[in-house]
């Protein structure tokens, strides 16, 4: 593994970057499942927070081993998705978007105030979530192999989903919910299952990233995170299972690449500002531009097979005529 990263170092790909790219890919997959069923849910940052906090609290405060803690985080995310999904998924379109944004905020606020609420109710001081300061000095237990395995499982699931009853039902619901219901598809059931699976994937990504970061804070999981996750899916595309993986990895790698290629210092020298210290703002601008450009001009995303086919055809216009067998 090390040899690989030595080789990739000149393009800005060290192991840490690669790990965060993998996390991004998993998060992209988590929103892909719901988008595949036509549900525009922004709740996955909230589920990620739940997965992170449950697993980190278990390993740090209750000395659970790593893998069971991650799984417990996923189960917690899934359980809350069951409770939230049933009422929320009756909403559609922008109402669903708003409700899930609200859900994400509620999760963050509750995590931030968990200890205080507990104290208020039971009149006993505890330290579980650590309030706004979060939990510090978490030992790094996640390694690249964990992430790769988890991602492969998720991608295999997405691949199988595309050709399964479940996937076809979701695709039908995405096309037209009423028609799907008339075809005898249990719309409520499939939507909820997709929502729960998406939540569990996000919670898993959260647990793994929690043991990678050393520090977790509730603010890491606010609306900005939801926008990040959405951007992964939009960049990669939401109809083909490789899409979110490509989207997440490319978007997470882009800032590194820009730094390596000294694009920032170049642009900075033009506008007369040192942009190398403004990473957050630059990331934001990249996210924003990606969101608008892809939604407007490439709604199928980077990993849209149609896009590459037509590109191939356009680049080799003569060959397609002559090359026909």
């Amino acid at each position, binding site marked *: 593994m090390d040899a690989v990263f030595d080789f990739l170092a000149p393009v800005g790909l060290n192991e840490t970057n690669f790990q965060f790219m993998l996390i991004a890919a998993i998060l992209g997959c988590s929103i892909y499942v719901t988008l595949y069923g036509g549900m525009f849910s922004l709740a996955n940052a909230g589920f990620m927070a739940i997965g992170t906090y449950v697993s980190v609290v278990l390993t740090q405060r209750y000395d659970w081993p790593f893998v069971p803690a991650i799984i417990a985080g996923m189960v917690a995310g899934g359980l809350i998705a069951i409770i939230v999904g049933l009422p929320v998924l009756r909403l559609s379109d922008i109402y669903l978007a708003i409700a899930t944004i609200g859900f994400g905020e509620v999760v963050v*606020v509750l995590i931030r105030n968990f200890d205080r609420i507990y104290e208020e109710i039971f009149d006993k001081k505890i330290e579980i979530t650590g309030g706004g300061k979060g939990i510090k000095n978490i030992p790094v237990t996640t390694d690249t192999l964990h992430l790769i395995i988890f991602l492969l499982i998720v991608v295999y699931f997405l691949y199988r989903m595309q050709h399964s009853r479940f996937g076809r039902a979701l695709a039908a619901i995405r096309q037209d919910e009423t028609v799907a219901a008339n075809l005898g598809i249990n719309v409520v059931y499939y939507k909820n299952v997709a929502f729960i699976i998406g939540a569990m994937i996000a919670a898993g990504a959260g647990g793994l990233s929690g043991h990678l970061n050393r520090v977790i804070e509730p603010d890491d999981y606010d609306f900005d995170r939801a926008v990040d996750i959405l951007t992964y899916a939009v960049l990669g595309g939401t109809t083909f299972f490789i899409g979110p993986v490509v989207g997440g990895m490319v978007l997470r790698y882009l800032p590194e690449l820009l730094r390596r290629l000294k694009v920032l210092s170049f642009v900075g020298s033009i506008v007369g500002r040192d942009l190398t210290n403004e990473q*957050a*703002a630059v990331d934001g601008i990249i996210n924003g531009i990606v969101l608008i450009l892809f939604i407007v001009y490439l709604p199928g995303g980077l990993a849209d097979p149609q896009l590459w086919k037509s590109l191939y055809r356009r680049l080799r216009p003569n060959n397609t005529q002559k090359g026909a067998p």
Partner: protein
Amino acid sequence: MNLRTLFYVLSAIFLGFLIPYLIATYLFNKEVLSPEQQLANAMWRGSIYSLFALGYALIFSILGLLNLAHSSVFMWGGYIGLMSVLKLDMPIWVAMPVGMIGGGLVAVSVDVIAFMPLRRRNAPRISQLISSIGASVILLSLATLIFSSTPKRFPQDSIDALPGTADKPLTWLLDNANVRITPIQIAIFVIPIVLMFLLEYMVNSLKIGKAMRVVAFNQRIARLLSINVGNIFAFTFFLSGVLAGAAGVLQGLAFNSMTPYMGATVALKGLTVIVLGGLGNIRGAVVGGFLVANIEIMSIALGYGWLSDAVVFSSLFLILLVRPQGLLGESGKMRA
């Protein structure tokens, strides 16, 4: 002027205050510290929320779009007003309209960049929502680059320059020494209410307002009646930006501290406000603004300020589940 609107606003202010007050005092035996002051605070704070939400609701009701970049427009309007004072030495009563027009122009550019190309393609509403998120992120990041993220404030002398305050800076005691209201807070309370009535008058009675309602009802009819729908979209965005810009400048004056993140904090509260009042319900936006402010002020007064966000966002979530059409529902709808 529409008396029913006034009635709704007043009941949102007073009932929104009175009900939690009575519950807290008599049900939970909690003492509310100086209720008059809390009511005053809820009034001016609610006014800013209402003003902010008004533009949100306007775009939703006329154009059927949820413009999540509205909070960034609000922040830009505030900063344009602030910079007019700091860099161009404008007096505050000039800087305020400058901030409003600036907000309007920023909103129009959001329309041009994020919405127009999708509209041409008849893209689904969710696509438009996503691209408005993109516009919002870009505007926010640009602001941190240009204005930096360190807090900035209106200089004291620009605030003192407001009529009637030169001799009594910032705090202004009423006869009842328990309540402290600054003239800025009074202006903050009055300006949004005036703007709301102007907006209501415009949408109901002026030709351009009626054209907006026709566009809201059916764009095909509007086109066949020679209404330039593109212009109406631009005008509606401009108007929403003007309202957001006014709210931004007032927010900057009220809290006397601005950062580029001021929009992000208000964004989700603004969403709560318009959902409470009923999405796209202009009157509901004003009512919702005062309700949310009352929720916040009451939780602070009762010593649970740290929970106010939890209450606000839970109510956003719950109202969507229980009553997606909002508290005012169909009855208060001003939508054409």
